[in-house]
């Protein structure tokens, strides 16, 4: 029982890492319909920004977190202006490909400039709580708490604020949004700024949690976050959270029962099964287009 609970907690904390990255993923997707393949790498850049903020600029942890978010927000805007904006009217897959290119660029440029060696990320003071034979650490709580808080804030922003309404309008019909007086460029920039800042927050928190940053650290979480986002219904913010948690708990479960070699296969298997039953993800509505 204790083991089960412990594994559940492990699964939830892994899932909240996925969720944290998936939130930004899904938001950017929801607004610009772009699978931002580079999202995981922005997360990596964020983690490095946090790392250098602490190591080189000697900032305290939370200041470093904010700094990393700021850096990535700016990076997100720049990246949108240079690599995505010119492709707004191009086939969607073109932007997807520049995202792949950006992902390659971030990874390899970091390898080139900083080296491929992993770097130890300074941890915040660790506190472990024990009860009923299970251990929970403050980092785990911090990540889960942040993910939930961000999910609620994001959901509120997108669904209930004027900016959020503008974002959704832009996602559905850019010309019509302009006719409403919405500044489409600013709205999309804003979306990328938020999405990238979220990725950075994830990068710093997760870097801190595992105590490591390295140039390829975004690849796997990026992929898993993508899966999580799709699982929950891509573009739907609470869906990313649900998807992340399901994925994390499923992976933990598979490993716990001794099939760790098949972990990723099972994770994808679950995804496919869920999609076959619910083709638009758990929270997605599968509305047939009205003709």
């Amino acid at each position: 029982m204790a083991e089960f609970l412990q594994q559940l907690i492990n699964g939830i904390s892994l899932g909240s890492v996925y969720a944290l990255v998936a939130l930004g993923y899904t938001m950017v997707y929801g607004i610009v319909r772009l699978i931002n393949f580079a999202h995981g790498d922005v997360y990596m850049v964020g983690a490095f920004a946090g790392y250098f903020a602490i190591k080189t600029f000697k900032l305290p942890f939370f200041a470093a977190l904010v700094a990393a978010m700021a850096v990535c927000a700016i990076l997100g805007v720049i990246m949108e202006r240079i690599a995505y904006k010119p492709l707004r009217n191009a086939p969607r897959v073109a932007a997807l490909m520049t995202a792949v290119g950006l992902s390659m660029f971030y990874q390899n440029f970091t390898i080139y400039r900083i080296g491929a060696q992993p770097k130890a990320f300074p941890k915040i003071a660790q506190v472990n709580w024990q009860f009923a034979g299970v251990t929970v650490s403050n980092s785990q709580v911090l990540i889960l708490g942040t993910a939930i808080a961000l999910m609620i804030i994001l959901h509120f922003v997108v669904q209930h604020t004027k900016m959020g309404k503008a974002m959704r309008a832009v996602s559905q019909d850019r010309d019509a949004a302009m006719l409403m007086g919405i500044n489409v460029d600013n709205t999309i920039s804003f979306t990328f700024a938020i999405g990238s800042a979220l990725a950075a927050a994830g990068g710093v928190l997760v870097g801190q949690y595992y105590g490591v940053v390295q140039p390829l650290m975004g690849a796997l979480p990026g992929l898993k976050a993508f899966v999580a986002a799709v699982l929950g219904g891509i573009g739907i913010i609470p869906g990313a959270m649900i998807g992340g948690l399901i994925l994390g708990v499923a992976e933990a479960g598979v490993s716990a029962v001794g099939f760790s070699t098949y972990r990723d296969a099972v994770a994808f298997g679950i995804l496919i099964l869920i999609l076959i039953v619910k083709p638009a993800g758990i929270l997605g509505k599968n509305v047939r287009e009205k003709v």
Partner: protein
Amino acid sequence: MRAMDKNRLIVAAGAVALGIILQLLIWNGTLNAYYAQVLTMMSIFVIMATSLNLINGITGQFSLGHAGFAAVGGYFSAIITTRLQLPLPAPMIFTISLLVGGLIAALAGFLIGLPTLRLKGDYLAIATLGFGEIIRVLFLNWKYVGAAAGMWGIPGYTNFIWAYMLAVLTVIFIVHFMNSSHGRACISIREDEIAAETMGINTTKYKVMAFTFGAFFAGVGGAVLGHLIRLLHPATFSMTFSVEILLMVVLGGLGSITGSISAAILLTFVSEALRKFNELRMVIYALMLIGIMLFRPQGLFGRKEFSLDLLTDSRFMFKSSKNRGA
């Protein structure tokens, strides 16, 4: 019609002549083993890219699972050539292994196609990516084919002329398919699935067909690759491989076969040319890729086909696919 046939004949003859000339140059040493290897890789990527184009570009189904099909083809063909002691001459064994690899990959494509066809767009992409990964994990755990250590000692049957011929056959198959009513059915699914259905097109059947054919050639491609590098390793068939092939398809122009061919050749060349830059190699590659995409968002060729007509009609450099068969 006449002019069309004539042009096609010229293209076909040109392709054959090019193959023969290159092979002769390889034999007499003008093109050394390195060039032969690169040309062979280009041919393999032509097989992979055009077959993915059948699924992604022509039928409009966003698949990211091509590496998985290649893995199936590669491994099963290698089982034929290494684990079975067939008392046949090498070319025959190789031919059989290619067929078996292709057919089992096609079966995989069929099985994957069936349940996932309900999915649309990005959901299909992630599901196919998932299937590709599942296939890879299965090979990673299959001791019979070496699991994580990979399968080595595969005979090096592949040479330039094999790969080239297979690439030509693949292209012919896909072009002929595209130019038929069956191909048009696939294209109509890409354009508007609901309208296609109301035109009496069994969209499921054609989607599965595209997946199956695409997977077959991906399997053949994987088999050729395996017998070139004489080693199969699950890591070869990771998602990166699928993405790389997708890059070629998009870069060439979704739906354009000549585009896929050109992009496969171009990207293989670029990757080779940049090799010596070591750490900077992929940085430059990435920047180039972004640059090309920004410069030509619809791909090098858009949906059009590069055509010999430009020789006869100097006004148009590119001829729209809509003209074919007319």
